[in-house]
């Protein structure tokens, strides 16, 4: 029983290794390069520029994480807070 689980798990651990990280990096670069080919409907000026969505997505996520950390540092409480 225990053995089967271990074997079924093995491929997953190898996949999350260095190879996978390299592959992901390649995908990211290719995705940005596609901006040279695909035409966006420019609505507000900035949104049609090269790689806009890519850096915006990263930045938005970064800001949201910072916001979450700020909220967390202010409002995190132990689970027993409301136990009366």
């Amino acid at each position, binding site marked *: 029983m225990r053995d089967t*689980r271990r074997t*079924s*798990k093995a491929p*997953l651990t190898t996949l*999350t290794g260095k190879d996978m990280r390299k592959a*992901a990096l390649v*995908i*990211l670069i290719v*995705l*940005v390069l*596609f*901006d040279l080919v*695909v*035409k*966006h*409907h420019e*609505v*507000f000026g900035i*949104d049609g520029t090269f*790689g806009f*969505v*890519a*850096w*915006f*997505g*990263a*930045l*938005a*996520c*970064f*800001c*949201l*994480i910072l*916001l*979450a*950390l700020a*909220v*967390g540092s202010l*409002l*995190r*409480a*132990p*689970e027993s*807070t*409301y136990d*009366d």
Partner: protein
Amino acid sequence: MTTSLLTSPASALLVGALALLFTRGIAHKIILLGFPVLALILVFHAPTGSVTANYLGYALTPIRADALALLFGAVFALAAFLGALFALDRSSTLELSSALVYAAGALGVVFAGDWITLFVWWEIMAIASTLIVVCGGEKAYRPAFRYALVHFLGGVLLMAGIAGEIAMSGNTTITSLKPDSWPRWLILAGLLVNAGAPPFWAWVSDAYPASSWSGMVFLSVFTTKTAAYVLMRAFPGVEGLIWIGLVMAVYGIVYAALENDIRRLLAFVIVSQMGIKVAGVGIGTPLALNGVAAHSAAAVIYTALLVMVAGSVMRQTGKTRMSDLGSLAAAMPLTAFACMIGALAIAAFPLTSGFVSKSMIVDAAAKQHLPGVWIALLAVSAGVVLHAGLRLPWLVFFGAPKPRIAAGDPPQSMRIAMALAAVLCMVIGIVPDGLYVMLPHQVTYVPYTASHVLVQLQLLSFAALTFYLMRDLLKPQPGITLDLDWLYRRPGAWLACGFDDLTAGAWTRLVSGINSKAAWLHDLLVTHHGPTGTFGRTWPTGTMAFWTTFLLGAFLLIAALG
């Protein structure tokens, strides 16, 4: 008229709920699955146009079947079926019966053509959903009670609004309104309570995780989505809704990013997703409303799927905290797979239902030249990776290995339910036309353009990159994040205690206060009378007689002056 009322999908489900109470064994299961299917069939055979009736001298329209109603009706009936299938193993008859009543309430609201009918179904939903929460067991009692209080508050606001609206305009039909009078503000407020809008959003994350593994599936489907539906009907294009929606979306993301409990996390996700819909209603163009309708339909399925996944994990492992979970993919492969489909759908990955629906709302903001809203919606779309899009599947099914948990995939009925939901997410994403023809407005929309696909892929992959780089900061940690419910759970409780003391003393003090004034008068007038303060003591009969005299005097005085 009577027959069409009896054959309405809502009434059918009510009959099913009743039948559930009196059956056992295989008949029980057949009823549980059969009546949602029957409701689905009845939705498509709903009488076209409207059915009218009379109550208190008002023309009622218990059934109004137009395109929007049919879409939501079909989705709700479908979701009721999926939920029932998932819950087939659940032994609590009360929960299952309440679930059917709850679904009936939602269908009743969907087909209601007038405010009075709507309200009755609305309250039925509130009661039935409270019972579902209660079925979560002993620890769910207090959250259920708070849930009931918030929903009754919403109900009262809605009732007052409806009564005022009818009194002022004499019109009972649900039509598109502008919030320009106090009854309409009250209606809007009542709807927003159910939509999970601030300041009452905390009920979602308070009550839903308290329910059982099966109960939350039903809860996640109906209450918030019916609120979105009624908002679409009654308040399209109310600008304030855009901002309320965006606040909800950001709130959901931030709180979900911090959350440790998977089911609480999903509750925040529900609020966040609702935010996008509420914002879409606020934009209010035909494209935006189509987007909201489509997104509600898609969200019902993928949210239910994710909640089912969480329910399976809870049932199979007995744990819901991510800090206790991890690397479950090997043990629960099908559940993990379902979770990934759900995650992709909620992240609006191309070829999933989320992609074909959410992009309509985002595009509507662009077409309407609302740059701020467009940017915010884009940011919110990126933020999905912080919760169910990446964080949840990552931490539960992959992530760091935890002490091994002995568990496997859940029983067959639950697996089938998850598989069906996952298939639906993909089918809608691949063949969106089936969904698009059911939308209320005639708008041609092509989701699969190179630009759309590329934007979404870039957005998600770079957001994921950021998350990957900063993943250690968002590790699950035990604890909760204080929310606005603190306001009524803490100072509220202190205040109530204080008020208790206050009122207990207040009457006595009021009476003795007045009595002492009277005593002063009395001493002044009849100085030879015995010990002072005879009035000062509280004697109910004496006090009563005094009040009587006082009122008599007051009455005469007013009469004399008037």
